[in-house]
């Protein structure tokens, strides 16, 4: 059972975002970087599958700058076995270009399962998993909350507009992980030490010229200042009046 998990290095979700000098990138000063949380569910699931089957190999694949390797080592500490870093310092925001670079590397890899997080919490497009699967011509099911593998098939659960779906797909296949799939483990110090010795190969990313470009970054539009209508139940009639007549929300 060969599993490849794609992970991305992203700013911590607690980070206060500051727009940098030229207005087209964020200022990295003081920013903590982590494995994108949805990717972490994917790493955890790969490890659980390997533990359940008692065999298999988990490879981490990451497209990003040199610092992505530290993030990959976190996945190693959770239990991944090896990995490939596709070196790209350009902070590419073109998901198609990223997907093409990942797919180019994946073409040379053997896997039964290809796992992604449903979206990277920096650019929030949620596209790369599906794009890579299409480029590799393998089936993909997005936003899974349960994954069972047996006899060359995967049975997954996901929540959609219809309700809860049970989907079956023959392997090899790709999946993107949604919150609720599992609770990722915290690596122990010993695992973190062991992670330093696991093999990590680096290659330049085969990135085509991006087909979109960033014009600028802005802070969110300020909402006009709100008002505290009052305290407790006594304020309720005034609130309802404002909602009906001022906000026209009721």
């Amino acid at each position, binding site marked *: 059972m060969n599993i490849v998990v794609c992970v991305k290095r992203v700013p911590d979700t607690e980070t206060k975002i500051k727009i940098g000098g030229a207005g087209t990138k964020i200022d990295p000063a003081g920013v903590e970087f982590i494995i994108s949380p949805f990717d972490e569910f994917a790493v955890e699931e790969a490890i659980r599958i390997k533990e359940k089957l008692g065999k298999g190999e988990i490879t981490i694949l990451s497209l990003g700058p040199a610092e992505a390797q530290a993030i990959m080592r976190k996945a190693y500490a959770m239990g991944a076995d090896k990995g490939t870093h596709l070196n790209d310092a350009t902070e590419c925001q073109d998901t198609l270009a990223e997907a093409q670079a990942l797919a180019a590397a994946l073409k040379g890899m053997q896997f039964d399962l290809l796992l992604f997080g449903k979206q990277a919490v920096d650019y929030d497009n949620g*596209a790369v998993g599906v794009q890579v699967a299409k480029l590799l011509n393998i089936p993909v099911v997005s936003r899974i909350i349960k994954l069972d593998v047996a006899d060359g098939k995967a049975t997954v659960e996901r929540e959609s507009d219809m309700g809860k779906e049970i989907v079956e797909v023959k392997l090899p296949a790709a999946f993107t992980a949604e919150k609720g799939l599992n609770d990722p483990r915290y690596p122990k110090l010993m695992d973190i030490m062991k992670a330093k010795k696991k093999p990590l190969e680096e290659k330049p990313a085969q990135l085509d010229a991006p087909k979109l470009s960033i014009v600028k970054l802005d802070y969110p539009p300020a909402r006009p200042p709100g008002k505290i209508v009052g305290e407790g139940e006594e304020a309720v009639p005034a609130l309802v009046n404002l909602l009906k007549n001022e906000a026209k929300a009721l």
Partner: protein
Amino acid sequence: MGNNVLIFAEQLGGKFRSVAYEAICQGKKMAQGLGGKAIAVAIGSGVEAVAKDLGQYGADKVIVVDNAKLKDFTVDAYGKAFAEVVSKNDPAVVLLAATFQGKDLGGYASAALGAPLSSDCTEWASQDGGIQVKRPIYAGKAYVTVKFNSQPAVISLRPKVFLPDAPDASKSAEVEKIDLALSDDDFRSVVKEIIAKTAGKIDVTEADIIVSGGRGVKGPEGFAALEELAGLLGAAVGASRTVVDEGWRPHSDQIGQTGKVVSPKLYIACGISGAIQHLAGMRTSKCIVAINKDPEAPIFSTADYGIVGDLFKVVPALTEEIKKTIG
């Protein structure tokens, strides 16, 4: 070089969803700017009959792929149909709503067509003969304006941000039905079962009004007061991450960075402190009301109206007052 806008007209159970109308209205405006046509694409089973109604929202033409095998959405089968139709129709822009289906389909189309993609856009503009979009990043802590350097471009719009114009009943669209050969290989993922949602339960992404609860609700029983208010308003009940992590409410109700992104007309936040990850999921709501015991709660900086008080007193009082005024 194409100048048409190809719009995915999302349907569920043979009926078009409101996001389809939203996308078609915007697609029509984009097409007018580009000097092309707004062509809606309807894929499913039993959609042919209602396809021409999409003209009422501005579709110049509707291309229909209607096949019993396409009753349930899977990205491979719908993707194949969509990509094939789009590639034959001179697309400058491929437009979808950023829903479950739309996000999957947008990614598939992007890869199939070699087209760059921007998902969950909250603004767009015609600029320099093309389209530029603006979209939230870093959970809405910043917005990026993107320009496309190649055609077509795949764009998905955040639901409920672009409200559709009133339908013009005098208009109807030309309908073209395509017979697509679909083999078993196109259905490599098979939907074995759908466990339908609780009847009558409104999804938070569909609702015009959301009553949402956070840690201040203290437990699952506390949600009864919110459910009553929501029932009166025809609203959905949402939840913060804490509430879901505690197991008080299901994950499908979670609003925020690792939950759902919503943009309702009215968002009533009860006992929610307003952490940045929660704001990421609801800050584009048209009107935000906050009810919280703590006057320093960060939510009050984002809310349009606030009441400082005990939600277990304020929420029932709100229900009673609304009954009187609407009743």
